[in-house]
Structure formats: structure tokens, C-alpha cells
């Protein structure tokens, strides 16, 4: 233990206030609309992401209505169903989860948690949001374009994506989708540079990398991954645009459509799949790593215990980030690849399970003999762990080629990925909102509404997705709007489908309560004070709540310890903030 003698502690000079050219807004417009303050940008990002996420939620109701009660709703044609699936999937993964975790939480938390005044490139940060908004608007526009949005599936596989048989294939749908994605990637790159370089360059004095809260580690690593993975989607989109608009044959094989030979020939749809999944798999972890980081902090704070195995947690995050770039082809087992390739990718896929499992053990061991407060953030964190383990286990099934081949493209896969990258990260998002809302607004979210929201969402999510595993095992394919008179499908499946639909509608209703709570508590919520959870990390130590422009007072904080000094024996309180020099002669603890 390296202890500091009391004398030398006082001798530390306050962090000099460097003459940062902090941008100062001059008008209402530049304060709230074209703001360069990361906190405002964060709220803009989060608001936009939730608004478009709401669209995706409504689309899921429509799909479920069709699946649960086929034939009842005339306006849900098979074409419409494909469009709903596609937009639902793409919005959820890219425009909601990625934008909310990185653009929303990243912007809000990184500067505050590392003790900076703002992001390092505020102007690019602002542009990032506005380009994101433009991307969302272009996406929304496709709902109103002739032919409607694309129905190619969120994977946008060619050749069908740009053929006339697919909704939007020869109309505006696919074009707007591709343009929107390209915009999103450009916008994200501007924001991503900020998140990475701020962590690298703007940490407060004393904030070594190994003192960063795991939230920052998660978001940081996810951003690095996103910066390297999104270009693959960019390349795929640009090349598909060439195929669609200029008639090249990068991806398009020779085709006969409606008895007519198309001018395409020789291209490789598999090439697209490689590019897409080179982005697509890391994307799963781009969403998961911030969730991992945030959940670690939630658990530690609400169990009043230091995180178990901090170093291991950091290494695991980095290891997962690196490994996730060499597993992409497990999405292509059924594309006719060489068996040795399949073997290789199955192996790497299973190897990733090791650092992931380490993280799960460490969360559980953090809880072990902790002083667990079942506050809303903790409830959601626990729900995350359970759900993630669940989805992770079915992932191990699917990672094996022999198991995946029969299950590929069944509802089992849909159940798996909803558990692991749908429900699990969403649980963390809710937990994080309940946790940080007091800092963002100065008021607590209403507890009663919160509990209602939690229990309905948690139990409801299982009511939706547990039966779906069974439906998939029976052999129900995914992306089928209707099963019809299929001999191998027992009646129980139809009943289950109706049940799932009812559950989905109830869960959807619970989200309305949550939204209402967000607005209601703005006015009527309990006053929170600066640090209602008695947490150690810097964002809770700001002089004002909500933090003012520039985050800190005249002086930047100085960091004396890691982020997890909870229940330190001998300390006057059960937590010691990171910027607290601490009582003299604190007994050692290990």
C-alpha cells in the first residue's frame, strides 16, 4: 500500500485552471439548440434516440399483432410486415441503442466522470448530433416515400434488397436507408473522435486509466470499436448504392426477374455479408460494452461494495473488444463457407465467452455479501445480469455450427438476440436513467411508477421471449408474417403466439408509464440533492446539480483514489468520493 503522509497531501497544489477556450454560448439558440455543451448534446441525442425508438416499439406491436392474430389486420400485408421488421431491427440496433449509449450516455458521462469541463472538440460534437438528427429524419422520410420503407430485413442482404420483389427495392426505401446509414456513420465518427480523445487527453489530475470508472472504460472501448467497425458498414452501403444507382455488379449476381434478364452479373452477395457482419458482430459489443460498464457501476454503488476484480474487468473489456473483430462469420455458417472456416469462427466465438463469463462472475461476487439496496437501478442491474446470462447461454448453442445450422433463421435466433442485445441492454438503459436522472434534472424519478415499470417490463420481457425459444425449436422460421396451414406446427404455437402478443402490448404500455414518469418527475419529483446515491464517482461531486456549463467551479477536481471506495473500514462515511483526499491515517484495506 502506498500511503500518503498527511503533510504531503495538503501540499498538492490545486489543478491549475488552464485557459481552456471553453465555448460560451451567447443566445438562447446557442445555449439550447445549437449547443456545444456535451450535456445538452447528450440530452438531444437521448431524446431523439428515444423518439425514434418509440417508432420501433410501435412497429413491434404491429408485427406482434400480425403474428398473434394473423389475418385480422388487413393493412398488415406481407410487404408491410417486412417493412416493419426491417425498420424495427435497424432502428433498435443503430438509431436507438448505439446512439443512446454512445451519443447519450457517452456525452453526458465522459466529461463529468473524467473530470473535464467538456468534450475536447465541442464543435464537431455539435455537428455529430445534427448529422445524426438528419440521418433519423431521412430514415423517417422513407415511411412517406413512394413505395414505403425498405423491407429487406435489417441485414439488407443483396440481391433481394435492391430488386423489385422487395418493398422499397426499386423505390426510395432502400436508397433512403443507405443514405441515412451513411449519414449516421459520418455523424458518429465526429462524436466518436470526441469520446475517445476526451478520455485520452482531458482526464483530471490523478485520474489514471486504472482509476476510471468502468462506465468510462466500457464507453471508451465501445467507441474505439465503433470507429473501426462502422467503416465496414459504410463500405457496404456505398457499394450497394453503386449497384443500385449506377448498375455495377459488386454484389449482384446474374439474375432473371419476372422472366427478364437483368443487366447485373457475376457479383457476390457473400462479399456483402462479410462486410455487413464485419460491422454487425462488433456492433453487438458496441452496445454491450457500455452496458457492461454501466452495470458494474450501478451494482457497486447500490451494493455499497467495491467492484470485485476491477483489473480483470478492465482487461475483459479490452479483450472482448479485440476478440469481437474475429468472430463475424458465425453469422454466415449457412452461407456455404468452407468447414474449416466454420471451425475457426466457432472457436473464436466460444473463446469470447471466457472474458464475458469472467465479468458475470465478478458482478455476482460484487453482490456477494454486499449491502444490497433494492433501488430501481439495482433492480434493473439484476435483471440485466439474469437476462444476459440467459441470452449468453443460448448464444453458446448457436455458436456451434452443428447446432446453428438447423436453428438458423428460426424464432430461436430471434429469441436469443432479443435476450442478449435487446432486453439486456435496454434494462441497463433504464437502470442508468433511474440512476442518473437525479443528476441530470435535480429530481428523483417517482418510485411507485418506477416499480410498476420495472416489474411489468421484467416479467413481461420473459413472457415475450421465453416462449419464443420454444416456438423456434419447433421450427417456426423467422421473418414469416403468417404460418398458415403448416403441418409440423402444433396448435400450441398459435396459442403461444397470441399470448406473446398480449404480453408485448402490456410491456409496451408500461413504457408509456415510464415516459410519463420522465416528464412528471421533472416537476413533481423529490428534490435529489447533489449525491442521492452517495456515490464516489466525480459526476456526483459537481458544485451544482444539474452541473453548470463547464461542469466544475473555478478549479478542476483532483482525483485521489479509484472509483470504488465503498464501505471502507474506518472511514467516516460508507463511501469516499474520488476527489476526497480522505481522512488521515486511513487503515489499509485490500
Amino acid at each position: 500500500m502506498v500511503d500518503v503522509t498527511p503533510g504531503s497531501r495538503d501540499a498538492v497544489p490545486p489543478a491549475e485552471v488552464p485557459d481552456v477556450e471553453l465555448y460560451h454560448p451567447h443566445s438562447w439558440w446557442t445555449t439550447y439548440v445549437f449547443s456545444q455543451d456535451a450535456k445538452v448534446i447528450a440530452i438531444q441525442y437521448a431524446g431523439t434516440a428515444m423518439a425514434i425508438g418509440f417508432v420501433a416499439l410501435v412497429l413491434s406491436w404491429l408485427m406482434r399483432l400480425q403474428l398473434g392474430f394473423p389475418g385480422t389486420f388487413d393493412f398488415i400485408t406481407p410487404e408491410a410486415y417486412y417493412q416493419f421488421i426491417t425498420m424495427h431491427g435497424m432502428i433498435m440496433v443503430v438509431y436507438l441503442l448505439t446512439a443512446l449509449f454512445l451519443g447519450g450516455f457517452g456525452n453526458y458521462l465522459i466529461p463529468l466522470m473524467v473530470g473535464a469541463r467538456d468534450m475536447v472538440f465541442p464543435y464537431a460534437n455539435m455537428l455529430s448530433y445534427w448529422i445524426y438528427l438528419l440521418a433519423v429524419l431521412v430514415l423517417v422520410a422513407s415511411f412517406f416515400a413512394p413505395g414505403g420503407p425498405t423491407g429487406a430485413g435489417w441485414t439488407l442482404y443483396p440481391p433481394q434488397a435492391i430488386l423489385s420483389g422487395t418493398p422499397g427495392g426499386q423505390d426510395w426505401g432502400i436508397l433512403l436507408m443507405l443514405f441515412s446509414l451513411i449519414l449516421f456513420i459520418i455523424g458518429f465518427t465526429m462524436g466518436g473522435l470526441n469520446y475517445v480523445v476526451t478520455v485520452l487527453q482531458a482526464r483530471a489530475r490523478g485520474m489514471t486509466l486504472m482509476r476510471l470508472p468502468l462506465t468510462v472504460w466500457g464507453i471508451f472501448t465501445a467507441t474505439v470499436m465503433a470507429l473501426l467497425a462502422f467503416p465496414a458498414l459504410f463500405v457496404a452501403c456505398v457499394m450497394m448504392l453503386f449497384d443500385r444507382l449506377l448498375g455495377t455488379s459488386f454484389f449482384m449476381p446474374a439474375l432473371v426477374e419476372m422472366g427478364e434478364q437483368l443487366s447485373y452479373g457475376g457479383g457476390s452477395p457473400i462479399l456483402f455479408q462479410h462486410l455487413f457482419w464485419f460491422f454487425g458482430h462488433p456492433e453487438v459489443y458496441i452496445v454491450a460494452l457500455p452496458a457492461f460498464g454501466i452495470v458494474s457501476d450501478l451494482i457497486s454503488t447500490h451494493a455499497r461494495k467495491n467492484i470485485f476484480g476491477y483489473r480483470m474487468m478492465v482487461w475483459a473489456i479490452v479483450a472482448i473488444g479485440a476478440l469481437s473483430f474475429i468472430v463475424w462469420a458465425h453469422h454466415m455458417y449457412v452461407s456455404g463457407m468452407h468447414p474449416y472456416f466454420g471451425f475457426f469462427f466457432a472457436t473464436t466465438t466460444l473463446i469470447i465467452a471466457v472474458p464475458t463469463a469472467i465479468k458475470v462472475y465478478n458482478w455476482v461476487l460484487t453482490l456477494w455479501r454486499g449491502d444490497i439496496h433494492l433501488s430501481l437501478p439495482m433492480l434493473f442491474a439484476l435483471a440485466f445480469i439474469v437476462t444476459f446470462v440467459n441470452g449468453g447461454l443460448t448464444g453458446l448453442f448457436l455458436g456451434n455450427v452443428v447446432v446453428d445450422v438447423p436453428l438458423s433463421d428460426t424464432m430461436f435466433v430471434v429469441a436469443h438476440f432479443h435476450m442478449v442485445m435487446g432486453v439486456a441492454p435496454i434494462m441497463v438503459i433504464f437502470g442508468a436513467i433511474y440512476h442518473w436522472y437525479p443528476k441530470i434534472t435535480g429530481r428523483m424519478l417517482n418510485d411507485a411508477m418506477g416499480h410498476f415499470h420495472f416489474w411489468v417490463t421484467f416479467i413481461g420481457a420473459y413472457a415475450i421471449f421465453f416462449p419464443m425459444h420454444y416456438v423456434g425449436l419447433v421450427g417456426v422460421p423467422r421473418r414469416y408474417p403468417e404460418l398458415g396451414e403448416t403441418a409440423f406446427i402444433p396448435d400450441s404455437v398459435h396459442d403461444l403466439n397470441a399470448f406473446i402478443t398480449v404480453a408485448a402490448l402490456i410491456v409496451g404500455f408500461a413504457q408509456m408509464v415510464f415516459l410519463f414518469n420522465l416528464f412528471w418527475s421533472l416537476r413533481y419529483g423529490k428534490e435529489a440533492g447533489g449525491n442521492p446515491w452517495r456515490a464516489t464517482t466525480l459526476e456526483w461531486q459537481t458544485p451544482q446539480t444539474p452541473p453548470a456549463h463547464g461542469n466544475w467551479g473555478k478549479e478542476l477536481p483532483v482525483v485521489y483514489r479509484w472509483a470504488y471506495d465503498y464501505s471502507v473500514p474506518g472511514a467516516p462515511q460508507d463511501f469516499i468520493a474520488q476527489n476526497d483526499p480522505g481522512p488521515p491515517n486511513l487503515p489499509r484495506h485490500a
Partner: protein
Amino acid sequence: MSVILVFLLVIAGIAGWWLSQQRLMSKPWLEHGPDVAFAQEDVTGMPTAKIGLGVFLAVVGALFALFASAYFMRMELSDWQAPPVPRLLWLNTGILFLSSVALHCAVLASRNDEIRTTRLALITGGLTALAFLAGQLLAWRELAAAGYFVDSNPANGFFYLLTGMHGLHILGGLVALALTTYRTWTKPLDGRLKLGVELCAMYWHFLLFIWVAVLVLLAGWASDFIDICRQLLS
């Protein structure tokens, strides 16, 4: 996908080297107090903007590495027929090289506080880059006139795609360069402005490197090289 994997390996190497300097083995729960943590090693000592540009160049590098990966994968298929490389491209390469040299001179001049030479070099750099772009457009016209349209063969498609992407990046760089040049009139030649000039030069050198890589790809030398390697291995 081998090109992008090699690229990522390089990035991973850099990241690993950097992480190895960050005391990832330390036990933060045992270390309190600022003295321990004020280890100066966590300050990179480089200007923030430079690091930002470095990260951005990594992203651009990944982008072109992915294009190259796609190029190699598509090339394997039977319908591939590479177009002839227009002679003009060699001239363009020379011009872009001159442009890079000019910006390098600008950096040297700005370090010596020679404001007029700096301006001159910056403007030369900008104009030569514009000439490069014009040359690229001419090369496109030449190819199209010879009947190598974008949709007649995937190799042609890649030709237009890669040169176009590279051109767009130059165009973006020109905006930054124009701003910096403008500032040499309106602002004093202080550390900030010098940094701006340096960053422009850094970007230019990188794009020159990318261009050479693209040219090697389009001229077919890259695949020749790989063939030779294969023969050596087997």
C-alpha cells in the same frame, strides 16, 4: 478480409503498446493519494488536436483497408477484367507528391516564423491539390471515352469508387487547408496556427500514402505481389 485484419493488427499493436505504458497491472484499490497517481506517464504530451487527427486517420485507414479487402475478394471472381491504368495517373501522382512537399515546406517555414514563405507554400499545396483533382477527373473522362464505364466491369467500378473516395477526402482536406491559409492573414503565427499547418501537412502525407496504396491496387501490382508470395510459400 485479410487487408483489414492486417490493418487492425497494426492498430492493435499500437493500442497494446500504449496500454502497456498505462500501468494496467497496478492495483488502484491500494493506491490513494495524488502523488502516486500523478505519474506523468498518463499525459501523452501531444497536442489534443494532433491526437484527434491521428484517431481520425486510423478511421480513414480502416475505410480504405476495407475497400481493399472488398477489392481482393471481388477480384477472385471470374468476370473480373481490370481496366488499363490511364497514363495521366502517373502525372497526377507526381502532382500530389509536389503538394505534399509544399505542405512540408510550409511546416518548416512556419517553424522558422517565415510567414510569407508559409503562405506561399500553403497556397502552392492547395493549388497543386486542386490540380490533382482536376487530373483525376480528366483520367475518368479518358477511361469513359475509351469505353470503360463504371458498370461495364466491377474492376472499373472499383476504379471510380476508390479514386472518387480518395478525391472526396482530398476535397475535405482542402476546406481545412483553405481555413488555415486564411488564418495566416488574420491571425498571428503562434503555436496554434503552426499546429494547424502541421496537421494539414500530416493529413496530406497520409492521403498521399493512401493514394499510392490505391494506385498499387489499381495497377495490379498488389495482386502480383500476393501471387509471388503465394508461389514462394508453396
